[in-house]
């Protein structure tokens, strides 16, 4: 698989080189990220030591196909694996009702932060609820998205509706134990942007995603096993997000952003009584996650920030959300703080941060909090565009 991706990479690069002979060539950008860290997690070999993580890379190739459509690819090299993070075509104008269509593999527009590439985040650690409910790479799926601009006057309001293959929701449980069959899921967002004055802007959004997160059956010993012909486990995500930005001059930006997720889904429970009891989908389980951060950029080159995280489940574990496991009642909280230095715009970033996680187990298990200190160096080579607001 890696070989194939390398071949694709070489074809893209040589095609880009070929096209650069003419004036029409796609934009190519390279993001590099190096992390060194130490942590204070008892029993790990990293404890108190200066650790070097493997460098990470993202390669963006994008450009116009014609006056109406664009295409983009994003290849990521993380933890020594090269993968296609995104690959899509995007019709941006010329469609009826001013609709935009995006098709391929891309970051799903659930909430605001998920669609922003991690190199553009103010902080270093993916929000905990993303990790638990979307997986380490965020909510990323294969599908098609339709975007509509609603006639709300000076208010910029978009409605996004997408149908996706659904591999991404296997984060809800052990991905190896899931066979969803062919059951596309739905994801959408209603977002509104308001300029409060020349210096202050606000965006608010409501998101939703639902579908089948697994198909399974129960064997005689009461365990679930993947079975595409069998019972459907449905899920529903509701999301709320906001982003507030105040920038009184070109040197100062205050950003406050937050998101919340409500998860409601089917799980196995006990039906019947006594000896006649059996496991069946009888439970509707509800839990949640959220983050909130503030980042204060000053003198154009520096920023200071803090983020609070909460999620149901234990961050870093593969949860089992099939059954009424304690996974639902367990929770993780995080506090992250950072200081960033941007010597020349976004082209280079040096960031020092600390994150402290604390764990809460329903069964009373005692687990020490975990502190990680991380120094990050990141560069952005080429014309990769800034994300809109």
């Amino acid at each position, binding site marked *: 698989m890696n070989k194939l991706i390398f071949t694709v990479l070489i074809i893209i690069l040589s095609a880009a080189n070929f096209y650069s002979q003419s004036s029409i060539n796609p934009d190519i950008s390279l993001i590099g990220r190096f992390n060194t860290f130490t942590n204070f997690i008892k029993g790990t070999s990293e404890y108190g030591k200066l650790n070097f993580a493997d460098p990470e890379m993202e390669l963006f190739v994008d450009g116009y196909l014609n006056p*109406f459509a*664009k295409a983009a690819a994003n290849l990521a090299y993380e933890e020594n694996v090269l993968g296609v993070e995104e690959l899509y075509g995007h019709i*941006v*104008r*010329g469609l009826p009702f*001013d*609709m*935009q269509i995006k098709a391929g593999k891309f970051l799903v527009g659930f909430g605001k932060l998920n669609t922003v590439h991690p190199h553009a985040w103010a902080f270093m650690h993916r929000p905990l609820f993303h990790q638990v409910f979307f997986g380490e790479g965020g909510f990323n799926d294969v599908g098609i998205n339709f975007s509509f*601009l609603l006639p709300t006057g*000076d208010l*910029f309001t978009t409605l996004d509706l997408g149908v996706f293959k659904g591999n991404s929701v296997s984060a809800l449980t052990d991905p190896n134990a899931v066979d969803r069959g062919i059951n596309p899921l739905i994801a959408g967002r209603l977002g509104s*942007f*308001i*300029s409060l004055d*020349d210096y202050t*802007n606000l*965006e608010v959004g409501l998101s939703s995603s639902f579908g089948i997160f697994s198909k399974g059956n129960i064997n005689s010993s009461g365990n679930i096993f993947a079975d595409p012909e069998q019972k459907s486990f449905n899920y529903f995500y509701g999301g709320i997000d906001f982003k507030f*930005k105040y*920038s009184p*001059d*070109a*040197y100062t930006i205050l950003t406050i952003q937050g998101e919340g997720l409500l998860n409601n889904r089917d799980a196995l429970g006990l039906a019947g009584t006594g000896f006649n009891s059996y496991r069946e989908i009888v439970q509707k389980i509800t839990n949640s996650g959220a983050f909130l951060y503030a980042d204060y950029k000053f*003198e*154009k*080159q520096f920023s200071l920030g803090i983020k609070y995280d909460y999620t149901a489940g234990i961050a870093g574990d593969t949860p089992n959300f099939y059954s009424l496991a304690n996974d639902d009642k367990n929770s993780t909280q995080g506090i992250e703080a950072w200081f960033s230095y941007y*010597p*020349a*715009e976004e*082209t280079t970033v040096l960031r020092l941060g600390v994150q402290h996680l604390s764990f809460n187990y329903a069964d009373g298990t005692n687990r020490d909090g975990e502190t990680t200190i991380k120094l990050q160096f990141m560069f952005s*080579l080429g*014309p990769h*565009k*800034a*994300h*809109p*607001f």
Partner: protein
Amino acid sequence: MKKIILLLLIAVTGISYANIKVVATTTVIYDLVKEIGKDKVMVDFIARGDQDPHFIDVLPSYMIKLRNADILFRIGMGLEMWSDQLIDGSRNSNLKVIDLSSNIQKKEVPNFKPDASYGDVHPFGNPHYWMDPENARIMAKEIYKALSSESNRDESYFKKNLDNYLSELEKKIIEWKSKMAPVQGKPIIFFHASWIYFAERYGIITSGFVEPKPGISPSPSHNAELVQLIKSKGIKIIVMENYYSDSAPNQLARLAGIKVVKVPTAVYGVRGINSYIEMMDYIINQIVQNIL
């Protein structure tokens, strides 16, 4: 049917109404469009006069402005790198994008493949050509051409406005030239490379820039070099765009006794500057007053 009646009413009563919807990326373009389009054109702008036009946030509220526009005028030459994302976001497939630099004699166009080690904001040459009033003349003509081809029946109206404006501008150009005559051959330090066209027009010697390279923030080592330069050449003023922080120039003022002259490089850049001509008046008066 209602529409027809309305049109008839307008025709009969002779009420003029805006035919063309225009968005300008900067307030200088906005002012020129107003002069030529007058009440046949509805015009709005994106970058405020007190904002660095290189770095404008890609805000959805700007996409709304472009949504129903007929024409977007921009300076071009890579100044408004942010404008393509706004155009895409507007979903407007009828928008005509007019680059006003097409007939400008461009300066500092790299004859090598530029890379970011030369600073990252002027990859296609220096885009600050509106600082030379002779170029404002060319911009006005381009705007006239675009408006006329958008609304043929108003061509003579736009022509009349263009001619009026050009003759007004001509008078000012002569006035500015004579005011600036004593400044000729004098050295000035500028903040950003916004002043190449202006300096060449008036024979000013550009001794240096507060920015080490276009778009790169001032640094202590570069400031130290400038102190030496100011002392050895006897440079009297730093002229700076008012959207930049004056902390580095003020430091130079303390260390080398140079005067800092802060001026707008766009319309509405300071209160009371409501047109291109007022802006140039203000800049030239400030320079003349402080350098002589």
